[in-house]
């Protein structure tokens, strides 16, 4: 019984200490993304034609009204009650942690369990740990429903592979809205790539629409264009395999994309 209890505790602690790592390897449903030399060309649909055609008129309308005083309510707004609850949750988590630490130190003081009474005491301590873990689970569930359940459309870029002539020191992503993301690879990230690992170099919100963006490895090398249609309100992963990257030419990359299924079972 003692052995099985210890095993159970060890398993629980191990499970708690290993954070749910996002899989670096593409999921089974991953699809290949073609990296092209030129930007994919799509027929552009006109939008806001009246605004564009009458911009000067609308501006004059607004300017005419600018001098007028407008009454605006400046009162405070109610604080979201969820935010007030987080303080209580932190306090409860600390209390549970301190209770567990106290029980642990008391147990460490005893050299030997000599009687059935001691075993009973141990079971009681384990029950206390169980309750603390259950409490943490409940608190995490609250946080998950408040935040993780509100996943917005996001893109995570993951690098893997080590090119024959060495990995680039940096890369640049240029989005259609004009945003440029310049990413310098740290020595630790380069070590991870060299050792066969994968590193996440970018995690940001992205517009939920079919779009293209360019990726480049330094000013002297040719950029490549990728087309992506990210799933809305999900974390979309893009893995760039650098194994065949030659002279920084981005079109020699192989790329795959998939949607991370991070919903709680």
């Amino acid at each position, binding site marked *: 019984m003692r052995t099985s209890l210890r095993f159970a505790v060890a398993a629980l602690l191990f499970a708690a200490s290993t954070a749910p790592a996002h899989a670096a390897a593409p999921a089974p449903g991953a699809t290949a993304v073609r990296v092209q030399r030129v930007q994919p060309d799509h027929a*552009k*649909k*006109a*939008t*806001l*034609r*009246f*605004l*564009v055609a009458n*911009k000067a008129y*609308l*501006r004059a*309308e*607004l*300017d*005419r*009204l600018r001098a*007028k005083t*407008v*009454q*605006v309510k400046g009162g405070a707004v109610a604080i979201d009650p969820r935010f007030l609850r987080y303080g209580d949750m932190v306090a409860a988590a600390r209390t549970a942690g301190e209770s567990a630490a106290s029980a642990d130190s008391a147990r460490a003081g005893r050299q030997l369990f000599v009687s059935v009474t001691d075993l009973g005491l141990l079971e009681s301590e384990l029950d206390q740990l169980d309750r603390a873990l259950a409490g943490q689970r409940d608190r995490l569930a609250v946080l998950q429903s408040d935040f993780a359940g509100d996943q*917005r*459309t996001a893109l995570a870029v993951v690098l893997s592979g080590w090119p024959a002539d060495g990995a680039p020191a940096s890369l640049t992503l240029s989005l*259609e*809205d*004009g945003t440029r993301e310049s990413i310098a690879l740290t020595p630790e990230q380069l070590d991870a790539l060299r050792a066969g690992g994968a590193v996440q170099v970018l995690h*940001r*919100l*992205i*517009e*939920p*629409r*079919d*779009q293209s963006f360019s990726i480049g490895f330094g000013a002297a090398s040719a950029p490549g264009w990728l087309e992506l249609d990210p799933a*809305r*309100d999900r974390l979309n992963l893009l893995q760039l395999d650098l194994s065949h990257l030659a002279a920084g030419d981005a079109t020699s990359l192989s790329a795959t994309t998939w949607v991370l299924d991070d919903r709680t079972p």
Partner: protein
Amino acid sequence: MKNGSFIPAAAALALALFAAPVHSGPPAPIPARAGLDLASAAAAAWSADAQLVYVENDEDVDAAGGAERWGYLFRSPSSGRARAWSVQGGRIAAAENVEMAFEAQPLAAGWIDSGAALAAADREAGHAFRHGEQGRLSTMLLMRGAFDESDPDRTTWTLVYTAPGAPSLWVVVDAAEGKVRRTWRG
């Protein structure tokens, strides 16, 4: 094969042919609010402080106030930039940066949808204009601080009816109360 079994088989084949998936036509018209959620999601990715400042039909408006495509303009006060997304058939059909050169104010929440605004404008003057002048509704736009100088803080729908050889009809509808505030020809 006996006739008795042939006829049901032929009928089943004909039914299957008629029930075959039809090629999807143009997307169904939607009211202006129907595309707002998607456009807002894109705007949130573009800028954390993006505010909706303008809505306009990108395709013709039907009798119920729906359009196949609506355009939504957002502005970021921190950067001063503006970007538009056009939503059609549940997808973003176009996105582009817009040079505004003026500070459009964010729309007030709770604005009435395009169908209610069109109904109010038609009741007041639009219906008579369409039939009297052989006109049509060409533009519906939603913005704040323009076309209603008596109360510039209001968010209003402005409907522009046009007719060949005649001055256009402009109808301004309060986007909170659904009442017509102004009409003029020009």
